[in-house]
């Protein structure tokens, strides 16, 4: 079945440093969504990318969808302590309702 892997699994950064998580799917995706889960919380939708090569920005966050629609990345510039959490990509293939989540990258930001 479809597998969605993310690297790294964990990342510790100092506040102000940049952070990137990479998402790779075993199959071509129709679209990719990104979610953030704070410690003890639930996944919260951040953004969706649909087109090949698409790039979207939300303040310090930059999201990219690969040309082959099999990979994606999230880059955070100048991390803050509020960025702490686990970032999941989630993708869908074909015409079904199933959204498959990636393995997640846990971000810790130290002062």
């Amino acid at each position, binding site marked *: *079945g479809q597998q969605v892997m993310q690297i790294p699994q964990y990342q510790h950064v100092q506040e102000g440093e940049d952070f990137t998580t990479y998402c790779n799917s075993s199959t071509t995706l*129709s*679209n990719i*969504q990104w*979610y953030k*889960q704070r410690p003890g*919380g*639930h*996944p*919260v*939708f951040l953004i*969706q990318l*649909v087109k090949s090569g698409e790039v979207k920005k939300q303040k310090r966050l930059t999201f990219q969808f690969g040309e082959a629609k099999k990979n994606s990345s999230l880059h955070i510039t100048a991390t803050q302590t509020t960025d702490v959490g686990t970032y*999941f990509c*989630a993708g*869908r293939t*074909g*015409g*079904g*309702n*199933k*959204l*498959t*989540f*990636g*393995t*997640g990258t846990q971000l810790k930001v130290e002062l």
Partner: protein
Amino acid sequence: EPEVTQTPSHQVTQMGQEVILRCVPISNHLYFYWYRQILGQKVEFLVSFYNNEISEKSEIFDDQFSVERPDGSNFTLKIRSTKLEDSAMYFCASSVVSSGQNSPLHFGNGTRLTVT
């Protein structure tokens, strides 16, 4: 802002017992989902539900699991005979349209199920 609500927040049960997890999706949403997350691991798809029937389910969603929308607001997940490995956080989610039509999922706060 409307929210997905789940009850209870924590459920402890003995192995072999039946549990029912409850969810109230956002009122104008049409698609409903159950996901589970074993502590520290990824969010795993269980089932999606639309128009009063299951539209898709995963290999995890075997005969021990069932879902129901008993009235116009609640959406339930029943586990008939719980096993130790069913211990996890169970998230309910809803969306306006199918995730296949590019609609984000709105998650509830989850029910932590502990099977002893």
